[in-house]
């Protein structure tokens, strides 16, 4: 049973994303919508991690050691300026995408494990991750022409 690895991966990914949202909020405080919404989404990620934790603990008793190269690192700090903002949002998007696919995989495993409780958590949280992706995409689409074509 290797589910625990993915639960751990997802748990870590949610914490990393929460942290990245907070860093972007702090770095781009001049973009008033971003500061507030990034803080808000960081709290969503915190909640996801909390909900995952009991499952991570439960399944971790049944596994061998974690394999190498499981965790990926996408975010290496914030940037400045319009272009920097776009790149930071893109990093957040990729991190949220990682969470998104992890939810899908963990959801499948929850089905296999006949774990209704875990499935319920996945169903609830993956919708919120989908909203994060959608919001980041919306915001980047809006910002891209001005940052890439207009700004000198």
């Amino acid at each position, binding site marked *: 049973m290797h589910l625990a690895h993915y639960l751990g991966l997802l748990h870590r990914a949610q914490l990393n994303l929460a942290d990245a949202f907070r860093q972007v909020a702090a770095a781009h405080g001049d973009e*008033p919508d971003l500061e507030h919404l990034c803080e808000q989404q960081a709290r969503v990620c915190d909640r996801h991690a909390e909900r995952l934790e009991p499952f991570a603990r439960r399944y971790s008793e049944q596994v061998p050691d974690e394999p190498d190269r499981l965790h990926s690192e996408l975010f290496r700090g914030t940037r400045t300026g319009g272009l920097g903002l776009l790149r930071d949002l893109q990093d957040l998007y990729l991190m949220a995408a990682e969470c998104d696919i992890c939810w899908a995989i963990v959801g499948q495993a929850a089905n296999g494990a006949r774990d209704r409780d875990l499935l319920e958590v996945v169903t609830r949280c993956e919708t919120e991750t989908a909203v*994060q992706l*959608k919001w980041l995409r919306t915001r980047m689409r809006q910002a891209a022409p001005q940052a890439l074509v207009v700004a000198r």
Partner: protein
Amino acid sequence: MVDRVADPWGARTPYRQGGCWPDRVDVQLADGLSPRDVDRWVQSASVLHSNGDAMDIAVKDGRIAGVRGRAVDRVNHGRLDPKDLYGWQANNSPDRLTRPLVREHGRLVPTDWDTAMGRIVQRSKQLLDDPGGWGRFGFYTSGQLFLEEYYALAVIGKAGLGTPHMDGNTRLCTATAAAALKASFGTDGQPGSYTDVDHCDAIALWGHNVAETQTVLWTRMLDRRHGAEPPAMLAVDPRTTPVAREADLHLAVRAGTNLALLNGLLREIIRRGWYDERYVAAHTVGFDDLAAVVDAYPPDRVAAVCDVPAGDIERAAELLGTSRRLLSTVLQGFYQSNQATAAACQVNNLHLLRGMIGRRGAGLYQMNGQPTAQNTRETGADGDLPGLRNWDNPAHIRELARLWNVDEMTIPHWAPPTHAMQIWRYAEQGSIELLWISATNPAVSLPDLARVRRILGRDELFVVVQDLFLTETAELADVVLPSATWGEKLGTFTNADRTVHLSEKAVDPPGAARADLDIFLDYARRMDFRDRDGGPLIEWTGPQEVFEAWKRCSAGRPCDYTGITYERLRGGSGIQWPCTDDAPDGTERLYTDGVFNTDPDYCETYGHDLSTGAEFTADEYRAREPAGRAFLHAAGYQPSPEVPGEEYPMLLTTGRSVYHFHTRTKTGRTPELAAAAPEPWVELNPADADRLGIADGDPVQVSSPRGTIRVPARVGGIRPGVVFVPFHYGYFDIDPGKRTPRAANELTATAWDPVSKQPIFKVTAVRVAPLEPGE
């Protein structure tokens, strides 16, 4: 005669449910002038609030000399707001701008039109020369111009320059109304009619101090309350407004908690079976989700969040749930507050759940704050496309491209048109290099004024201001263009219940001042915008031609004007759109058949997630299969971006006074109105005043993380923990050397609703302290 400053609503003319509101013709003429002396009466309507009260302008010796309400009009039956009775005097104010001004060596100096327009055109062409030139233009217009002016501006921006950066100050006043209407019903467009006041048996006022914002509408409500079978009344407002005092039930909620309240009320309505199951099943989408979300808001929880008694929440639900003809009206207490769109949508939900829409008395007003805000939205001079079209629908863009004969690529549609707050952000960052401001005064009306002044003062930003007076904003401009105003130009405009009025030219503008339309058309000519065949893009020379062009643009859309002509608007009452061959007298109510504008090919938006503003795609929208049904949206309550803490323990809310409009550009120059409310104040609850050692009239200091103002205290009229400062006051009437901070927006934060992008003016954390004498 009644002193309408002392009594803003005038004498009662009571009437019963289903009756006809009696006429009452209000007249005000210049001192010593009798109606016999008037040379001419010229038809118009009000531009000093959003009600759309029809009036005639009195002309004596080539000057405006008074006003008279039009008894024939469906909106006001002859009545006028005190601002209209006196405000016309501002037209004759001696400090009107009469010549263009340009900045020379740091100072604004008078010049001629050729020089002023030449500078704008030269700068424009320079900016267009580089790739992405379209993105260096920003237009910030108003809710106070005429329809024809907005449409001309929209075509200049969207088909001439091809910039998405165009919005109005309507973003501050009515963006949430539009967003909520689109979200629930598919497109913008007020479902109700003012005549719903005549038929309703309950009126709910959601953050709407109608007694001060639209006095004539309030008069209609008061007349019902004084007649037989009066409607019940519910007020939701942190302040004890005249509306709250009149209401049978007043919920003085903590600022920023509207959504929690509405979720709680809808929970009661659903649990107690006060909703119309058949209507919901046949005409809505999303009931199960809504029921699940609101179920988490029992009265005790809502009472704790909103700080109102749980019993009052249950009573309010009963008032709403047992009424048979419910009228709701929503305004800035919701629109400028936390979770604005979500809360406004919940009022839509209330009416959908109860099947209270599209029939007499069962009305819903998502109100406007300004007289012509509806036109800003319809024509696309704000963050919308003309004719309430969907920027994300390629077929809608093709229609516009055909109409204007331009390449589809010219029309910005890769993202929603840029909202005002983002336009200002681009100007701050420097990617917008020319900002053209018409008929509004952001240096007083936007949040965080220190920041706004900083942006306007940037050397790299070329600022054009088009106005009647040297406003606080104009003082910072590079070019100032003197405009004609109401009574000095011809055009149409549309009020909050879709009534279109004609406003005739009564007198010539002062000096070299020009109609805003003429200024825009002059710019278009000088810029020589071309269509895709090389012909001139804009050939209009006057308002009637633009109106006819607009009719073609509006054809087949919800705001269809094709049945309206200037001639038809002359003499009689205003006409409600849509007005077509099928509905030649206009349309009193929308959605009478329960079929909404949600068809994917027709709708104005594919929708948003209410908590983040994330956009849904066409495919996602189609998957919900709305098929003419309305959307029941739901969202959980979340605290506002700014909440009280140790350093700033109280909440500031801002709003209007009955005597003033916008930034007092006109009302501050009207002797009676200026004297009625000459300076700003801060309203405090007696318990808070006591604790802080503040007595009525004491000078106090109100501070937020953005700034500090000094104003006298008024004790009373507001719930504990919340203070109120009127937002009208700036600095134009104070000698520059003697100005001390007093504008409410020195304090407010740059934050906005994720969907409507309307700034959150009504939830600012502040600290209040007494000022020592001499401080």
